[in-house]
């Protein structure tokens, strides 16, 4: 990639939009999963009995089980959300950038 092209893409508004929206989206989702996971792990380290609370007053299933399963499901959902948005919105922007370059 030559210098000229680099400068041109850098100034391309679609490119700027792509980098900005994608970075902030990726960072937000990363923080979300990290916060959820580390809260889970630190609860186990500091206050494991919290997760032992029974789900129903007369049952044995602890709330730790649906919480743990939810972390797994959340990880899957977040990858789905990111993939969906990236494969449409971000790829459309990328293609627009590519087409602009080809036109000149």
């Amino acid at each position: 990639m030559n210098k000229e092209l680099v400068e041109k893409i850098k100034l391309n508004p679609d490119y700027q939009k792509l980098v900005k929206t994608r970075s902030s989206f990726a960072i937000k989702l990363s923080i979300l999963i990290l916060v959820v996971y580390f809260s889970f792990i630190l609860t186990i380290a500091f206050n494991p009995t919290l997760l032992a609370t029974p789900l129903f007053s007369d049952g044995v299933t602890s709330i730790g089980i649906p919480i743990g399963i939810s972390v797994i499901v959340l990880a899957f959902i977040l990858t789905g959300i990111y993939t969906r948005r990236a494969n449409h919105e971000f790829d459309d922007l990328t293609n627009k950038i590519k087409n602009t370059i080809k036109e000149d």
Partner: protein
Amino acid sequence: MNITRSFLFLILGSVVVFASGTIEGEITKQSLNISAIAMFVIFVGATLGITYWAAKRTKSPKDFYTAGGGITGLQNGMAIAGDYMSAASFLGISGLVYLKGYDGLIYSIGFLVGWPIILFMIAEPLRNLGKYSFADVASYRLRQTPIRILSAFGSIATVILYLIAQMVGSGKLIQLLFGLEYEIAVILVGVLMILYVTFGGMLATTWVQIIKAFLLLLGATFMALAVMSYYDFSFESLFSHAVELKGIEIMSPGGLVSDPISAISLAVALMFGTAGLPHILMRFFTVSDAKEARKSVFYATGFIGYFYMLTFIIGFGAIVMVYQNPEYLDVAKQAINGGSPILGGNNMAAIHLSHAVGGNLFLGFISAVAFATILAVVSGLTLAGASAISHDLYASVIKDGDADHHKEMQVSKIATVVLGIVAIIMGIMFETQNIAFVVGLAFAIAASANFPVLILSMYWKNLTTRGAVVGGSLGLATAVVLVVVGPIVWVDILANAEAIFPYKYPALFSVSVAFISIYLISITDNSQSAQKEREAFEAQFIRSQTGIGAEGATEH
């Protein structure tokens, strides 16, 4: 601590140490398991057929390393999940659930949460910048020779440590399941893996992995459904029956992670280690573009998450159907230690459960799948190691990026055979050794040497060659030293009274060392080449974000 006690923890493919819950005692060789062997022979026949088919399509280095880049997102997701769902995680996690209940779930969650981060941060730039190996990305704007050597070293170290663990584990497991001699089992695994990889390259390796992942998910689904159907699909009644047998403790965390530092360090190792495993990263080059790379992670996360939920049910199923079942009771051990030990130790829980729900035929199926799983995982590892040798060291360093394709292929095939032989020899050599530290070390190296250099090369403009080489090496050295002076090697193996470094998992410390030293050395690097490397960042970043100029990227 003898090897039989520690080996299955090893093939868990993890850094978590738990002293109990492994295949214990003298390995009692089973009588030949005919239905298992028959099903395994069918699997080997089919996969050798695939290898023959793949061999005819594997002509260039691109075919060999990346299956020609023609794998779809769904196929790749299945293959990635297959790399992750080793025999170890199947038997080990279900065994851990069987032993400790809830702790098994904590453990699998740790393995899963690295995937979203890989998707958000790594998958796309990796696909857009690299060709065959993650070293392509790390060395994109830095000096080829030192970075390639560092990355190749990190890759080969990770691969060999992992291979040793897999080989020793597989030898024991096959001995138990099939009644084969240990040496024969190890040689069989080594030879088949060499055949798959040298002739079929990534195409065969990927399809072997996909088929195995499918069979494993199928078998595990059947087992989980069978268990649930006994309880009218009510988790509460499954759990309450299990609690009756094992006590209410199995419903809550039980000391797998005890203090906050260990908890965080383990989390760091699992997350960043996953993002630095060469055989996993390599899979992102087998798809055509960033779109398919993203889909791969989405599907992989789904399959892996689903699989972990199944192992949780299977572990509880084993509590209610295997625990205290006289059929699976190890009478000899009970006479010595009391309790209700099961034949082969806790990690055989899923295997016994397969017999309990499906009889001998299904036991044979699950045993064959476990064997297939080992084969598929070692093949992927070997291919990643071979590509580090042939692509990073031979073609990029020795031949300065100007290697003849035919020659490069030859080197990669020779490297595969050599790695295979090394794996067989190591597998036999380490049969009775305590190698409890090797997988922990592999993860620590991946997290501390491979990952920091990779992620900073993608996102941090000021990274320089000097910073990456010094920081990456320091991270690697710190990981190795802290594992050696930590509780597992220093106390359990070298029999010292107290560990110099108190934590089992060094990742939090070694990863910090790597990042801090890379940062400090890079920003103080005022050389001319450093300046050039910073200037080259912009062009690299544009390509990493858009894929413009990327290998195999298709124009839409």
